[in-house]
């Protein structure tokens, strides 16, 4: 059974000039891959759902999704000629020798990951024995925990948790960093790795005493964002984190598997059975990417904010798109945790029109839009330099008009520009930040209409390639 297959070196080539590279880099010979009994898609985010990868598979392979997968994804897959099956949560299904049971994400999961279906994998011939549980990008399912507590499902032998922390070094502005904080974030010397491990391992094990004895796989974070100069995120080598975790835990095994490694898990821990012949780490590329990061960090260089895409149209069109969507964003702000922070800020300052600002950079001149709490609207105001805007408004966003318009037009996704081409400043917790609001408001779970355009571009790309191949054959 294949889960969330990305079978190419990169994804996103069909719709952006800066596609995302999978990390660690791999060499994959899909032609030698065995035909899977099924493909399971946990959710629709672009690092999990990739139509060009699915296009490489035999059309007889059933594609499995959970109840919360958005309809448009299902239709896109069906258009490729696959049969898609929606499984109910908590029901057992056999695919070849594997028993699959899907569960909803934990209730405290952030909104933009709340559609994730988690996957419990067991031996179909022996389902009473605990298998391994894939949390994917979400917190462990409350429904799964209730099942363990009630004895209706065996506790897992191993749990895969995700380290998607995207830690950035000094000089690199992370997606959720804060322009108003010194160096982009609060706090002094921290061991980010300890924070990560404590969160994903102890945070999961503490949910239920039966989970404390499980072994843990650290996965996730498996791509390079568009920080070309830096290369991979620090602390995204899961094997290093697992090695540290093993020194700080008792009686359990922790592993950070590498591409192509074949693992078996039993009550004693993980055992490497071998390596796949059709999938392996691209070691030269891996070494060179790590060396690039080391050089970058030693140099003390920083990465300035940049324009992710060149504008498809003139500035007037871009601002028309943006101003149309700012009406939606204004309403979303008032419903989000950010809205409460803005009310608190207005009470403190006594000014309801100076709480949140959007500053957009453009060839024809920058524009600034201020949010008015009394109308829940953004109004254009006299343009401010970013430094002045940060002093004047407690919350704000700055980015290139072309990038934001590309997101609002569906040419890019919000994840593509956050940090790299769009930055925010805020007070209070990170989940009340303007970028977190944008993840919620423009992610696939709310704006499937925008996400669909990326899917359409992938489908168009696949169909164009097929058409060209047919024409070549005909010629």
């Amino acid at each position, binding site marked *: 059974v294949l889960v969330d297959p990305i079978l190419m070196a990169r994804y996103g080539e069909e719709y952006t000039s800066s596609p995302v590279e999978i990390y660690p880099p791999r060499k994959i010979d899909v032609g030698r891959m065995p035909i899977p009994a099924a493909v399971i898609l946990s959710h629709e985010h672009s690092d999990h759902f990739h139509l060009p990868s699915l296009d490489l598979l035999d059309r007889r392979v059933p594609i499995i999704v959970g109840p919360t997968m958005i309809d448009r994804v299902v239709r896109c897959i069906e258009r490729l000629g696959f049969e898609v099956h929606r499984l109910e949560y908590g029901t057992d299904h056999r695919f070849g020798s594997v028993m699959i049971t899907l569960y909803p994400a934990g209730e405290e999961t952030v909104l933009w990951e709340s559609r994730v279906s988690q996957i419990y994998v067991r031996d179909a011939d022996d389902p009473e024995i605990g298998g391994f549980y894939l949390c994917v990008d979400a917190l462990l399912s409350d429904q799964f925990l209730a099942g363990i507590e009630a004895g209706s499902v065996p506790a897992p032998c191993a749990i895969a948790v995700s380290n998607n922390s995207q830690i950035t070094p000094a000089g690199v502005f992370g997606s959720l960093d804060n322009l108003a904080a010194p160096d982009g974030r609060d706090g002094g010397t921290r061991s*980010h790795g300890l924070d990560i491990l404590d969160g994903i391992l*102890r945070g999961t094990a503490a949910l239920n005493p039966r*989970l404390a004895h499980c072994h843990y796989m650290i996965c996730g974070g498996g791509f390079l964002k568009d920080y070309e100069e830096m290369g991979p995120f620090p602390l995204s080598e899961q094997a290093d984190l697992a090695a540290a975790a093993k020194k700080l835990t008792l009686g359990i095994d922790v592993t950070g598997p590498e591409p192509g490694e074949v693992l078996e898990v039993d009550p004693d821990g993980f055992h490497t059975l071998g390596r796949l012949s059709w999938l392996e780490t691209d070691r030269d590329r891996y070494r060179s990417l790590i060396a690039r990061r080391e050089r970058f960090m030693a140099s003390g260089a920083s990465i300035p904010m940049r324009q992710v895409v060149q504008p498809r149209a003139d500035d007037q069109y871009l601002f028309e798109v943006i101003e149309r969507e700012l009406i939606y964003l204004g309403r979303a702000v008032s419903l989000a945790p950010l809205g409460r922070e803005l009310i608190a800020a207005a009470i403190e300052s006594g000014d309801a029109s100076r709480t949140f600002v959007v500053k957009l950079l453009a060839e024809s001149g920058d524009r600034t839009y201020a949010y008015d709490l009394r109308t829940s609207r953004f109004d254009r105001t006299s343009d401010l330099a970013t430094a002045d805007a940060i002093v004047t408004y407690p919350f704000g966003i700055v980015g290139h008009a072309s990038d934001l318009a590309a997101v609002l037009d569906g040419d890019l996704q919000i994840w593509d520009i956050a940090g790299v081409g769009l930055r925010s400043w805020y007070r209070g917790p990170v989940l009340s930040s303007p970028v977190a609001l944008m993840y919620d408001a423009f992610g696939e779970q709310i704006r499937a209409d925008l996400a669909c355009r990326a899917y359409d571009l992938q489908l168009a790309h696949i169909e164009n390639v097929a058409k060209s191949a047919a024409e070549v054959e005909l010629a």
Partner: protein
Amino acid sequence: MRELVYIGQQSWLVRYGSANILVDPVLGETFGSSENLRFRIVPSRSVDIQRMPRVDAVVLTNEHIGHLDFPSLNGLPQEVPVLVPSLTPTVAIDAIRATGRDVVLMNHDSPCEVGGAKVTMYYGRPDVPVWEARTMSCLISASEKGGIFFQSDTAVRPNQAQLCQPDVFVATHNAQIAPVDRLTMFDNMLPLPPATPAEMTGLHMLNSVVNTSSAMFDSVRWTVLSGKGYVQEPDRFGTYLWSDFEQLAETANLISLGTRDRSATGPVRPIRAELCRGPGLRRLGSPHRALSGYQRQR
């Protein structure tokens, strides 16, 4: 010039400029109130007090036996003053004065000059356990910014960073984590699951020690692990789990990232967040010079 020398347990010699200051000196091989129950310093070491440099002052962060050790105080010249928290129990103050020493009562955030260095002590968070509520943290510095901050056995107040900007933070790890089948002081005899699963105690402990207090200070460049450097005699079960500080520091460094050096006027320069203990402290900016009065035996 400044130098930080680890003596053992929570004892340190700080050399700041021309000042030599001892913090919580326990200089013998063991300490304790009774001959029938001693606490042996680990890793074991010997201290030759005669060859130790002149001491300008002793700082005691609290009056507990791992910090106030009369045999150690008595080994020092009588004219060395002892700085103690203002809320130190009178019985302890009287006992120190009875040895013929001056006792200086230190108020919260009220510095004292010692041989050209500045010693400032701070009370911790009011919600620490009552038996540690009189404990003070201590900052030894030369100017308004920088300095070495000894957390001692208390929790740092949330607003502490407004009062001082240390660049070295000596964090306390006093967790007494026994093997799973042994009960220690706070373990529950009832078979109830603990809030932190036993499997994850080490991870939780190290994250708390490294990321709770020192992370409050943007100024901190180095975190140094200190604390719980003894075993009980007669022996109960040897050393506690996760009490090898060098291994803990090595593990934390493996998964730590550079911090930010805001003192530099040029571009932001990442430096590695170092967590280290005694002998590794030659990163403090001046050449490390081992004091001949201290020998460490492993």
